């Protein structure tokens, strides 16, 4: 009975989706807004990566909302584990020599790559979220290799808060200088250079640090409270 209901519901959902998607002319003519971004994106924002020009310039407020959602998620994980009793970490089996040696070589490179991804977010694919996630995966590797070590929670909290404050602070500065929240008030510079696109690299650096610290903290909460 329940299975039949599930199949029926799925069929209704699939039909609805198919009908809705059938009306969209995929791959043919682009809508007005998309055409505007493609034609004027580089000139208006200075970012050669058009995805970034949408994420951090045209729709920067949405990105602030996204960052807030991730923050709330990290706080939620922290609250769940805060209620638990302090962990009693017995001696653990050491990681194999391959993992330990590999992590020594790879961790600095992963960190460097993460920073590269968010610093070049306005030039090449990637940005704050991707770079932060890469950094957090490096922290995960560190946890796998050095099982007795713990993260410095206060430092992570400071990095997270500074990233968030920088994002909102730049938004407020834009409000003060040119009248709209999160407006790009710095000079656009010459496209394709590292120091171009106005406030976009600064915001992406803030987002990268914030996302990296938050995801690393979620991993740390899960690993350390065992």
């Amino acid at each position, binding site marked *: 009975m329940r299975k039949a209901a599930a199949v029926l519901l799925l069929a209704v959902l699939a039909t609805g989706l198919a009908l809705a998607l059938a009306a969209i002319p995929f791959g043919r003519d682009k809508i007005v807004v998309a055409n505007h971004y493609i034609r004027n994106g580089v000139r208006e924002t200075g970012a050669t990566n058009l995805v*970034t020009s949408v994420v951090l310039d045209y729709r920067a407020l949405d990105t602030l909302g996204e960052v807030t959602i991730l923050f709330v998620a990290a706080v939620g994980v922290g609250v769940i584990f805060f209620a638990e009793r302090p962990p009693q970490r017995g001696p653990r089996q050491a990681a194999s020599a391959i993992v330990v040696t590999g992590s020594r070589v790879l961790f600095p490179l992963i960190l460097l790559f993460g920073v590269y991804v968010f610093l070049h977010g306005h030039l090449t694919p*990637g940005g704050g979220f*991707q770079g932060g996630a*890469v950094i957090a*995966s490096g922290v*995960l590797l560190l946890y796998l290799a050095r099982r007795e070590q713990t993260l410095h929670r206060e430092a992570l909290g400071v990095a997270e808060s500074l990233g968030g404050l920088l994002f909102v602070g730049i938004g407020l500065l834009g409000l003060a200088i040119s009248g709209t929240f999160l407006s790009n008030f710095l000079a656009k510079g010459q496209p394709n250079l590292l120091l171009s696109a106005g406030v976009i690299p600064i915001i992406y650096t803030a987002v990268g640090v914030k996302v990296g610290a938050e995801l690393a903290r979620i991993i740390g909460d*899960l690993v350390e409270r065992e």
Partner: protein
Amino acid sequence: MTVLATILVAVMIAAAVATSVFKDLMNAVIACAAVSLIASALFYLLDAPDVAMAEAAIGAGLSTAIFALAIRKTERYEA
């Protein structure tokens, strides 16, 4: 490219079905990571490298680790 994409989609669907069928949740998590990895490759083939990067780092990397750690703290086998 079409052949490659077809193969990838087929493997992806198989991994997605496996995710829901496996009773050992650790196996299900690995199958789920495979779905994310293939989705990331498909995003790259479809000229969306930004999304591909996010999917590979978060979907295939971090969420797999978070699921695995959560399973270690709870039950490994589905009742």
